[in-house]
């Protein structure tokens, strides 16, 4: 039986663990921490909080009936967007190259679709040593079940030790099915991937609670070790035209086709000029804009910067801007290079959606607004004065 235990000898009664327990299962009795096992969900939050390592997890190691050492290669699922390789794929390849080097193995790319063979070279240029290609009319549209069946079969045949995919709507819909079918461990939304060189296993780092806490996760006894990776977190692999790779064409088995799902149509959304997840710079507005017309000020600034427009929930709820622009807990999680928050106070629900941005700039009239706590640069003042002036000055700078 697995579980969790507090070593009463080691516990110094500091109660650090009490505050971090999300379910309130830990209390102090006679100066020692006690876990109420009826409440504990074994989330592990307390374990690393303990300064004396008094909290121990007891885990029976279940070893799957598989020869782990026979699994080789770091694979990447190549996501296709409008007949081209999506940029997330290059980010994955960049990471895969480092991981493969540490493991002394090859980089593989899975390329599925119809008339996609010509894209193989692009993957090779970005570091793929092997491209596992299946070019078939049944793969024209992404149907997660069909793709998952196909990839599970490739995994069985070629035994990769690691499989990475983008944490996109497509990637997230696909990999969970693969993980179940292949009986593999999957860590979603990773922001960091490293190799434990001693154990030759993948260490996956992912944020939880919208980035307020981070977890390191391993899957030592299962293969492949699967992870999805957030967009814009890792740098793209550089193009190396001299890099050579092998294209391995596999046959498509009709039995992989999911007949219960029919693609009917795809309607491109015309309104969203810029995809928030793709944007390098986001200019975001909050309640401080006071009325919907003032988003124009942000658009002017965004035009100069080539930025996308984001919004806090308040503006979306008030009907000032469509939901597709909402950043935060019930909107999108973004991590652009620069996030400019204008008139956003910085409620935690908003912060969890943007605080992993590389540089945060806040413009707000209230110097005590929580947004300034996460900001790298803060401008305190009236945004109706600051933004137009900033836009004008940046424009001048650009024209020089």
């Amino acid at each position, binding site marked *: 039986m697995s579980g969790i235990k507090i070593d009463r000898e080691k516990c110094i009664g500091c109660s650090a663990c009490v505050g971090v327990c999300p379910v309130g299962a830990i209390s102090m009795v006679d100066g020692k921490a006690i876990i109420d096992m009826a409440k*504990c*969900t074994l989330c592990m939050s307390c374990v690393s*909080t303990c300064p004396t390592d008094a909290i121990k997890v007891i885990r029976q190691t279940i070893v799957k009936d598989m020869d782990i050492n026979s699994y080789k290669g770091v694979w990447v699922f190549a996501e296709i967007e409008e007949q081209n390789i999506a940029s997330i794929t290059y980010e994955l390849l960049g990471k895969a190259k480092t991981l493969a080097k540490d493991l002394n193995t090859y980089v593989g790319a899975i390329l599925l679709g119809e008339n996609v063979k010509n894209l193989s070279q692009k993957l090779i240029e970005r570091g793929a040593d092997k491209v596992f290609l299946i070019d078939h009319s049944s793969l024209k549209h992404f149907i997660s079940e069909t793709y998952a069946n196909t990839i599970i079969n490739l995994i069985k045949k070629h035994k990769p030790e690691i499989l990475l995919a983008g944490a996109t709507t497509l990637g997230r819909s696909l990999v*969970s099915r693969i993980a179940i079918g292949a009986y593999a461990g999957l860590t979603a939304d990773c922001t960091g991937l490293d190799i434990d060189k001693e154990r030759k296993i993948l260490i996956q780092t992912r944020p939880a609670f919208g980035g307020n806490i981070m*977890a390191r*996760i391993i899957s030592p006894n299962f293969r492949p070790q699967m992870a999805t990776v957030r967009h814009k977190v890792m740098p793209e692999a550089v193009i190396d035209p001299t890099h050579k790779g092998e294209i391995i064409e596999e046959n498509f088995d009709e039995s992989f086709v999911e007949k219960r*799902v029919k*693609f009917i149509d795809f309607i491109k959304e015309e309104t969203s000029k810029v995809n928030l997840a793709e944007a390098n710079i986001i200019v975001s507005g909050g309640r401080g804009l006071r009325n919907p017309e003032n988003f124009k000020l942000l658009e002017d600034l965004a035009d100069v910067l080539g930025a996308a427009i984001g919004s806090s929930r308040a503006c979306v709820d008030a009907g000032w801007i469509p939901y597709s622009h909402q950043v935060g807990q019930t909107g999108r999680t973004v991590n652009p290079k620069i996030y400019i928050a204008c008139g956003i106070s910085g409620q935690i629900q908003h912060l969890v959606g943007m605080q992993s941005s590389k540089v945060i700039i806040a413009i707000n009239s209230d110097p005590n607004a929580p947004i300034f706590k996460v900001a790298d640069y803060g401008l305190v*003042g009236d945004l109706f004065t600051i933004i137009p*002036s900033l836009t004008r000055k940046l424009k001048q700078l650009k024209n020089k």
Partner: protein
Amino acid sequence: MRIAVCIKQVPNTTEVKINPKTNTLIREGVESIINPFDMYAIEEALRLKEKFNAETFVITMGPPQAESALKEAISMGIDNPVLVSDRAFAGSDTWATSLTLAKAIEKIGNIDLIICGKQASDGDTAQVGPGIAAHLNIPQATYVNHIKNINIEEKWIEVSRLLENGFEILRVELPALITVVKEINEPRTPSLKGKMRAKSIQIPVFTNKELQIPENMVGLNGSPTQVVEIFTPSHKVGGKIFQGDPDHIIDQFILEIKDLL
């Protein structure tokens, strides 16, 4: 038609505060709520119930106190709750969680449509929904923003999915699983009669005695992934704040950031 909604109880982040000294979450005394995305799943099930006279189930996996989440769903109008709770289930990762929930759904039996929120606000994985579908070997449609049509006789559902760059329309045979996004509806508030019913309802509990999942496939033991460490990310301390005459501070600011652009 029988519909099952899977929900998760999560800490209410509206109330979560960050300890400024340690930069850790203060979670003590934080109220538990239904994962906000699951509220849309409940609402959609209720709309289908009103339209097709469907029987609705709500399922959650968690410790006994997760009962309050089920009661809230009942107060909104869901017919039947199921609590999936057993010490053996604690510590489950997405693989083991989706297996356990899939077994619970099988146990309820004859479910035509499973609805989940697109992801949970604490874990953010979006993996459990598709995982349940995979364990049950039924088709899925994720990120659904609109149910366009349901044909009960021919047993299919037609949905619109919200993708990064547009909408995809899929027709999926039932039984199926869908995960829904915020755009699909606006969740209702509970009703007084629903609250009265929730107060007195007996909630059936499925333990592993009922579900009979091999011990090495549930909970901590049955989870392929292992959390080895949880830590607080290093936060930025003290950003640069510009305050004063607007013209002056903008010039200073631009000087500071122009290399970033």
